[in-house]
């Protein structure tokens, strides 16, 4: 039984309903587990008394849980399926490369990690789990083309983070770019290095894996002022140096362009990236 965090508030609001509150919160916990986990639903189906005793202290609520077990199992596939669809969409390209094992990983994650509210970002946790899983499988020698798959996870994670980063509605307006004021990378923007050419694999399958070329690239991923996620290969060394400087902290436009070999070109890039929303002042 999970410790109940809100007992003080609930028992205070309930005016002496302390014991029923505990039993009822435990019942809701058990309902939640069965609705969101095929494993818990399986346990309830095959050993209802054991599952109820493990989940609930009150014998009346144990009986209640057993009574509603068929209803909960009728609801469970909809809850689990909806979550798995969302997670699969978030890592669509990675799962495309992985093929069948990827779908098992979605199921494994939904059993291992309980879903969290929107603000805590279930898909973000899933992408972190996926990256870790790819590393572990690669280290154990169980994953072919692990470098390609790891790059795809990195790219999709950056897409997700760029889209999810909070902002101010006022950001949609472009202000004047002042040379003497510090500029920063927008919080949605990040510079990532990929070793493999995965950016253009929009709808991949496992058959694509052997064909992916090694093509190291530095990629700027950010969210535009209108909410579109943009990826840009950074080829010019002046711009790459400037973005690396900005990744470690704000600098003025003047200071940045003074370090460049071709000042006008860098200045034009900075203006463009500022206008599009990758840079902020």
């Amino acid at each position, binding site marked *: 039984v999970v410790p109940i965090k809100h007992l003080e508030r609930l028992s205070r609001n309930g005016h002496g309903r302390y014991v029923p*509150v505990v039993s009822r*919160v435990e019942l809701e916990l058990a309902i939640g587990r069965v609705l*969101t986990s095929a494993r818990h639903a399986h346990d309830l189906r095959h050993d209802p008394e054991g599952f109820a005793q493990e989940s609930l202290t009150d014998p009346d609520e144990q009986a209640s849980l057993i009574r509603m077990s068929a209803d909960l199992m009728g609801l469970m596939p909809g809850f689990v399926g909806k979550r798995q669809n969302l997670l699969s969409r978030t890592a669509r390209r990675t799962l495309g490369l992985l093929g069948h094992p990827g779908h098992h990983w979605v199921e494994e994650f939904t059993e291992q990690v309980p879903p969290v509210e929107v603000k805590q970002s*279930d898909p973000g946790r899933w992408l972190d789990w996926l990256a870790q899983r790819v590393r572990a499988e690669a280290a154990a020698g169980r994953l072919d083309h692990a470098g390609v798959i790891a790059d795809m996870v990195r790219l999709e994670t950056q897409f997700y983070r760029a889209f999810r980063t909070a902002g101010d*509605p006022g950001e949609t307006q472009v202000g004047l770019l002042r040379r003497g004021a510090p500029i920063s990378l927008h919080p949605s923007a990040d510079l990532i290095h990929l070793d493999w050419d995965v950016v253009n694999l929009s709808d991949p399958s496992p058959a694509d894996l052997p064909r992916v070329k090694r093509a190291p690239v530095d990629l700027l991923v950010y969210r535009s002022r*209108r*909410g579109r996620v943009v990826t840009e290969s950074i080829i010019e060394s002046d711009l790459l140096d400037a973005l690396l400087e900005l990744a470690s902290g704000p600098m003025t436009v003047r200071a940045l362009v003074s370090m460049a070999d071709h000042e006008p070109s860098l200045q034009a890039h900075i203006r463009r990236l500022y206008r599009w929303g990758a840079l902020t002042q």
Partner: protein
Amino acid sequence: MTQLESGAPPARKPLVGAGFRPELAELFTGPEGPVVEVAELIADRYFADTGFNRSWELAGLQQAGIRVVIHGLSGNTASVLGPTDDYLTEIRKLADYMDVVAYSDHLALTATEDRALGHLAPNRFDDELLGHVSDNIDRMYAQTGRRPRLENLATKIQLAGSTYTVEEFYLQLLQVNDKWDCLVDVTNLWINSQNRPLDPVAFIDQVPPERLRYIHLAGGHREHGEWIDSHSYPVHDEAFELLEHVLSRTLPDVVIIERDDNWADAVKHVRDDLDRAKDLVHDSKLLVA
């Protein structure tokens, strides 16, 4: 009238709009101006510790001058646990920022101590739960500064041990707590009536007219002999008939078309549904009176 006050329905025309989705953006912020009179935002999508997620969407709606209502998915109203303080703080922040017409949520179980359910679940609907739900509404009212509009649940399955059906519980709650008003999803009512015994007209007639302030309409589909509230097709004729019945009894603040899937032709479908809802509002005898 403030959003905390109860009382008689406003003698003004209901605003007719749709749930804002990027796929439907042209109905809200298109070059020809808004087709909708009000936009409903899924509140949870905008929550963030600082600023807002999808901040550009909020900016676009503000620039288009569209009135806004917010619709929460995780209010956890039908539970012992209730909504978290953080959730209610986020609702208030968004509602204040967008100066919303109303805040609505679901009469459903959406989270437990150790997890979010990610979907709307029924609970064991009984008198014990009724007391806790009433406490939850008091907190929602106090912490959001608004009378929540609570939506009736679409569900075929009702948990064994319940002493009320979903609809009986909803109506009983109106007697127990007067700090909330009704978001009646007429499609949910119709779909429930197809999947189990329920008289949707009788349900509407039992809701006090002054507390019926918000309407949802959507289109579902039939799967394995059962109707699913999938928000993926044009609104059913039967749901429009129920809207017409509502409008013969009262004028809600807002009427919202919901569409969440099957995007081919969705803009056209929602535009047609909006026209039909506007016509029904226009023809309401209460409005003419």
